[in-house]
């Protein structure tokens, strides 16, 4: 049995190399000092994340109450009545859903236009699955029965986060396209007819992944540093060294080579930069 598992692993490794050719390995750096941090998220990204979270909360709430017919409804009747009572009427509710959706697109548009290289291409580059990622996924699944299996090093996002990222990217595009088609009746009627279930499925896919995302971030003790990084922008360097080893080395390498501006606070402080020497 382990022989088969290993064979699958080698196959995944080969597939991964075909997907993303191995970049030149960064220099190896020692583990960071305790308390050192690395900057992970721009302020713009933190804002985008919480803007996105707020929009999702509002749109899930109102969208769930908009599908009223017995054939398709997802939320119970009392919930629909509650939300409609808050908004006054279903017509107001629908208008609110559409307006928030349009504002959502308007809020993301500057990132896509002015920050295309940094926030679109940069983000997509971080989502590329490589050989380490495919092996990571396979070993993660196997570790349910063999918890001692070592996991390959991970980049800025681990393979699970990358899969979540692809679901979100794909679903976001589908949600925006179908949302505009439905709200403004763009295209022939068959397109509008199919937009309804497509909108629903894309939302459902993200919603299912959102359970995992929120649990991992807000409840899982060993993901605390990642959770707080979405407020401070900084992540514990020791956590990064162990959970995102490839990213840790890449960041330090970039800092030293001047490809990335790095926080370099006083070495004695709690934010000690691992690249700075005491």
């Amino acid at each position: 049995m382990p022989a088969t598992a290993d064979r699958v692993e080698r196959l995944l490794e080969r597939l991964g190399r075909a997907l993303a050719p191995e970049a030149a390995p960064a220099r190896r750096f020692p583990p960071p000092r305790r308390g050192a941090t690395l900057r992970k998220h721009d302020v713009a990204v933190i804002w985008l994340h919480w803007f996105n979270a707020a929009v999702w909360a509002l749109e899930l709430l109102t969208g769930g109450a908009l599908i009223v017919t017995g054939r398709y409804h997802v939320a119970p009747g009392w919930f629909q009545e509650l939300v409609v009572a808050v908004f006054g009427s279903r017509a107001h509710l629908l208008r609110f859903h559409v307006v928030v959706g349009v504002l959502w697109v308007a809020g993301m548009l500057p990132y896509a236009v002015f920050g295309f290289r940094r926030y679109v291409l940069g983000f997509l580059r971080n989502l590329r699955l490589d050989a380490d990622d495919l092996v990571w996924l396979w070993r993660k699944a196997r570790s349910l029965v063999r918890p001692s299996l070592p996991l390959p090093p991970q980049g800025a996002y681990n393979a699970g986060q990358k899969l979540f990222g692809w679901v979100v990217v794909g679903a976001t595009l589908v949600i925006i396209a179908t949302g505009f088609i439905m709200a403004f009746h763009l295209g022939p009627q068959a397109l509008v007819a199919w937009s309804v279930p497509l909108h629903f499925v894309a939302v459902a896919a993200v919603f299912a992944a959102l359970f995992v995302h929120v649990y991992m971030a807000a409840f899982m003790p060993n993901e605390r540093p990642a959770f707080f990084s979405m407020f401070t922008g900084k992540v514990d360097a020791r956590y990064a060294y162990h959970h995102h080893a490839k990213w840790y080395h890449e960041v330090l390498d970039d800092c030293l080579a001047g490809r990335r501006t790095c926080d370099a606070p006083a070495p004695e402080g709690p934010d000690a930069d691992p690249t700075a020497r005491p």
Partner: protein
Amino acid sequence: MPRYGMVIDLDRCVGCGACVLACETEWQTPPDTRRRDWVTEIPAQGTFPNVERAVYVGLCNHCDRPSCLSACPTGATYQDDAGRVLVDEALCIGCGYCVHACPYHARFFNPVKQKVDKCTFCAPLVDRGIAPACTRTCIADARIFGDLEDPASDVHRLAYLEGAARLETPQVAIGPNVYYRGSPAKFDLILRHHPPDPERTGPPPAGSIWQRVLRPAMFAVLGLTFLGQAVAFFSQLVQGEKFGRFEPPPDEPDDALPEPLPASRPEEQDHARHR
């Protein structure tokens, strides 16, 4: 509350189509689209002298159990207290599910409003005490409109006491409230040529696949992920927060200082010192 209905007298109708024109004018339905009501001639059938012809006068039947109602995802289609099946245009997104779900083909997509359009039994007029446009204009009084619940009304008498018929088949019996009276041969001709369409009692494939496949699949996936997170959280509660906690490996000193690193660029170090 009243329960509005209409009786069409097949013996009186001459097929002039004035009612269709009156409806188009009253409700400004765009030309070259389907209409809110229609007059379709069925050519003479049989051999002389046993020949029969009929005119199919149709409109929304404002059915007792409308199949269009449950096809609408947003609840734009509704049935009011007087039994009229109406479309709330503020909620209609024009997906056309209801159009597919009407076995009488009584609904259409209005390209000007970009909403679904249909006969309302002239609800805005009737509520002000004015008869529907089609009945007011009919030269032969072949359309009789009124309250089916009112024993004094003509429609009550014709529909319930004089046996006017509903355009129904054993496959599609959803309680239409437009009744037909007159020669049974004419009615049979209409029923043979324009029976309610048994293929059109539900939403189109987009809606039925959503209902039968996508919606249950979504509940299954959501349920599974929720269950997974619940199990993880409960084991966190049972085991205390050791579960999956980040701990550096034992051979890594707790206060590890970095090994000497390759010197970074001098100007960067200056920058760092000055901050």
